[in-house]
C-alpha cells in the first residue's frame, strides 16, 4: 500500500483568497446599473399604481355615492368624499325590496350554474381534446360557431323551449296545456347551466397537457373516466378557477332571463331587484349604488380567494 502525501495546494496570498474588490470603474458601473434598475422599477410601479388607481376609482365612486344624500348628489361641481356620511342609505335600500330573497336566489342560481359548468363543460372539453372520435372536429366547430350567436337572438326560442317543456308545469307529453318550466327553478338553472365558451376554454386547457400522461395511465390500466378525473383534471385547476369564476360572475349579473321566466318575487334575483331604483321618472342614485355595492361583495370575495388560479388560468389560456 503506497502512501502518498497529497500535493500541497499552491500557496495563495491573502489577497487572492479574498474576493477581489471591484475596481472604482466597476463600482461606478454597478451603481449606475442599480440606479437604472431602480428608476425602471419605480417607473413600472408608478405606471401600475396609476393603472390600479384608475381601476379602483369607479368602485370608490360607487361606494362614496352610496353614502351621499340626494341634496349632495345634486351639487355641482360634484363632491368626491361625502360631506355627510349617510349610512342609512344601506338599510333603506335593502328595505325597498326583499333583497334577502334576491341574494339567496342569485346565489343558488350562480352556484348551480358554476357546478353544472365545471362538471359537464370539463367532460365535454376533455372529450373534444383527448378522445378521438368521428366528427369531433365538426362538433368543435359547432361549439365555436355557437360562441358567435348573440345572446338576445336566442331568448325567444329558449323561452319557447322552456314554456313547452313536456310533462312539467301541467304540460302534456307534447308540451301543451300548462306553463312548462316557467316560474320555476328549472327555468332559472337548466338553460344557463352550460355554455359553449366554457367547453371551448376547457378544451384548450386539456389540449395543452402532454399525451405521455394519458399513455402511461392507459398502460397502468386506467379507464377513460379515471384518466379524466384523476390524471388530467387535477392538472387544470387554473382552468377550473377561471371558468368557475367567469360562470359565477355571468350568472350573478344575469338580469333579462330571470325577469322573463319568473313572475313571482320569490324567484327574482339581485339584478332585477336593483332595477327598482332606476325608473323612467328618475334614478335613486344613493340607493342604487348602495345596492350595487352590496351586490359586488360576493364577486370581490370570490376573486380574492381565487385570484392566483384565475391569473394562471388566463395566462395559460393565452387570453391574458
Amino acid at each position, binding site marked *: 500500500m503506497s502512501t502518498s502525501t497529497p500535493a500541497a495546494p499552491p500557496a495563495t496570498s491573502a489577497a487572492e483568497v479574498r474576493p477581489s474588490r471591484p475596481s472604482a470603474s466597476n463600482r461606478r458601473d454597478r451603481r449606475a446599473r442599480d440606479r437604472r434598475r431602480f428608476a425602471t422599477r419605480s417607473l413600472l410601479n408608478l405606471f401600475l399604481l396609476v393603472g390600479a388607481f384608475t381601476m379602483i376609482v369607479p368602485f370608490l365612486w360607487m361606494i362614496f355615492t352610496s353614502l351621499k344624500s340626494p341634496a349632495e348628489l345634486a351639487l*355641482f361641481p360634484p363632491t368626491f368624499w361625502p360631506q355627510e356620511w349617510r349610512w342609512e342609505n344601506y338599510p333603506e335600500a335593502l328595505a325597498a325590496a326583499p333583497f334577502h330573497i334576491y341574494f339567496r336566489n342569485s346565489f343558488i342560481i350562480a352556484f348551480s350554474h358554476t357546478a353544472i359548468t365545471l362538471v359537464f363543460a370539463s367532460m365535454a372539453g376533455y372529450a373534444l381534446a383527448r378522445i378521438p372520435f368521428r366528427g369531433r372536429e365538426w362538433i368543435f366547430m359547432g361549439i365555436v360557431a355557437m360562441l358567435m350567436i348573440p345572446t338576445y337572438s336566442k331568448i325567444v326560442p329558449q323561452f319557447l323551449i322552456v314554456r313547452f317543456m313536456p310533462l312539467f308545469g301541467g304540460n302534456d307529453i307534447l308540451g301543451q296545456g300548462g306553463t312548462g318550466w316557467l316560474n320555476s327553478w328549472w327555468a332559472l338553472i337548466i338553460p344557463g347551466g352550460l355554455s359553449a365558451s366554457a367547453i371551448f376554454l376547457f378544451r384548450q386547457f386539456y389540449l395543452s397537457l402532454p399525451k405521455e400522461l394519458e399513455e402511461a395511465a392507459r398502460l397502468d390500466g386506467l379507464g377513460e373516466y379515471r384518466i379524466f378525473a384523476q390524471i388530467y383534471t387535477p392538472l387544470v385547476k387554473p382552468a377550473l378557477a377561471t371558468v368557475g369564476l367567469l360562470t359565477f360572475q355571468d350568472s350573478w349579473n344575469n338580469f333579462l332571463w330571470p*325577469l322573463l321566466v319568473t313572475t313571482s318575487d320569490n324567484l327574482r334575483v339581485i339584478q332585477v331587484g336593483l332595477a327598482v331604483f332606476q325608473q323612467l321618472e328618475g334614478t335613486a342614485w344613493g340607493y342604487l349604488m348602495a345596492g350595487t355595492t352590496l351586490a359586488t361583495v360576493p364577486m370581490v370575495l370570490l376573486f380574492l380567494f381565487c385570484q392566483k388560479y384565475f391569473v394562471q388560468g388566463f395566462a395559460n389560456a393565452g387570453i391574458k
Partner: protein
Amino acid sequence: MSSRTSRTRRCAAGLTAALALTLAACSAGSDAGGGGDAAPGEVSGDITLLTPIYEGTEGQRLLEDELLPQFYEQYPNVTVTVDYTTYGQLNEKLTTAVASGLIPDVMMMGVGWIEGFADRGILANLSEDAGYTQADLEADYAPQIVEAGMWDDSVFALPIMLDTRVGVARMDLLAEAGYDHTPTSWEELREMAIALTERDAAGTLQRTGFDIMSTDLRQGFETMFFSSGGSLFNEDFTEPTFNSPEGVETLQFLVDLVNTDGIEDIGFTSTDAEVNPLLNGRAAMGIAHNSLWTQAEDAAPDVMEHLQPFTIPGEVPGMFFGGTMASVAAGSEHPEAAQALTEFLASPDAALAANEQRGNVPALTELLDSDYVQGNVMVQFAMENLDVAQREGGPPAWLEIRGDIKPAIEAALLQQQTPQEALDTLADAAQAAIDR
C-alpha cells in the same frame, strides 16, 4: 348606466324583430266576450296583471295592501296575480309572453304601444266588449289621451298616468340676465338661450342656456317638433312625415343651437346624469320630465320656487306626453274579471294613488282639483295644458320605428348628416317598417 341604455336598445331591436315573426302565428282572436253587464258578485276568475308601475316596496305595498283589497271588496270572487317588470324590459316581457301564448289577462303598457298589439289581435276591443266609445272617454280625458288608447276607431286601453315633457325655466337665472318671462317664440328661446349660456375663459361650458341633452333626444326632438305644427305621421298612419319641412326646420334649429350658437356641448349632460342640470344651476332652461318637481323636493328644495314650466312656443304650444295605459288580453279566459280590474285601476282613486306614488300626471281631468295635483307645480301645469299635449306613436310598427329616431337626431347634431339627410333616412326606414 349607459350600458343599460344600449343593452335595452339591443334587446328591443332583437325582440321587436322576433315579435313581428311570432305574433301573427300565436295571437288569439278577439273572443273576449264579457261586456261588464254581470253583477260584481258574479264575476269570478284567477287573473294575471303585468305592470311596469307599482314595482318596489312602496309600489307593491300600495297595490297589494291598499288597492287590490279595495278591488276584492267589490269583486270577492276574483284573484289577481301580479307580475312586476320595469319599463325598460316591458317589451321583452310582452314579446315572450305573446310568443308563448301565456298572455297576462291585464297588461299595462305605454302610449304608442297600443296600436301594435291591438293590430295583431292581442288586445281586447273594449268598444265591442265593454261598450266604451271615444265620445264617452273624451268627457273625462283630453282627446289626445283617449286617442292613445285607440286603434281602428275602437278603444283598446284606458289611460292611468301620463308623463309629460315641457319647457322649464330657472326664473332666478333668467332674472339675473334681465328676463322676467319664459320665451314666447323660437326666436326668443334662441336669443335667451344664447344670453344665458356661460363658458369660462378657456371656453369650457359652465351653464347651458337651454338643455336638450338630459331628456331622451327622441322625446326632446318631438316636443320641439310638435311646437312647429308638424306631425310624425299622416292621418291614416301609412306614411311618416318626420322629414316634412317642419321636421327639417326643427332639427336644423336644434343643430344650430348646439353647433352654431354653442348653447350646449355634446356630453355636457345626459339622461343618465345624477341630477337634472336645472336643479344645480348647470342649465337655465331646458326640456324636462314632470318628475323634476319631485326630484327637486329631495335634491334641491331651494330652487323649487324658481322652477317655471312652459309649453314650447312655436307655431303651436309644444308639449309631449307618454304614459301608462291598462288593457285586457283578447284571449283572456276571464274577460269580465280582467275588464273589471282594468276599470278599477283607471278609476279616480286608484289612478290618483298610483300617480302620487310615482309623481306623475293623472290622465283624468277631474283629478286636477286633487291636493296632490294642486301641490305639484309641474303636474298641475301639465294637467292644465293637456289640451295641447301630443303623443308619439300611431302606426302598429311604432315600436320598431322609435328606436331609429334618436340615432338620426344624433347624426345631425354631430354633423355627420344634414337634418334633411338624417330625417330622409329615418323616414325611409320608418316606411319600410310600416310596409312590412
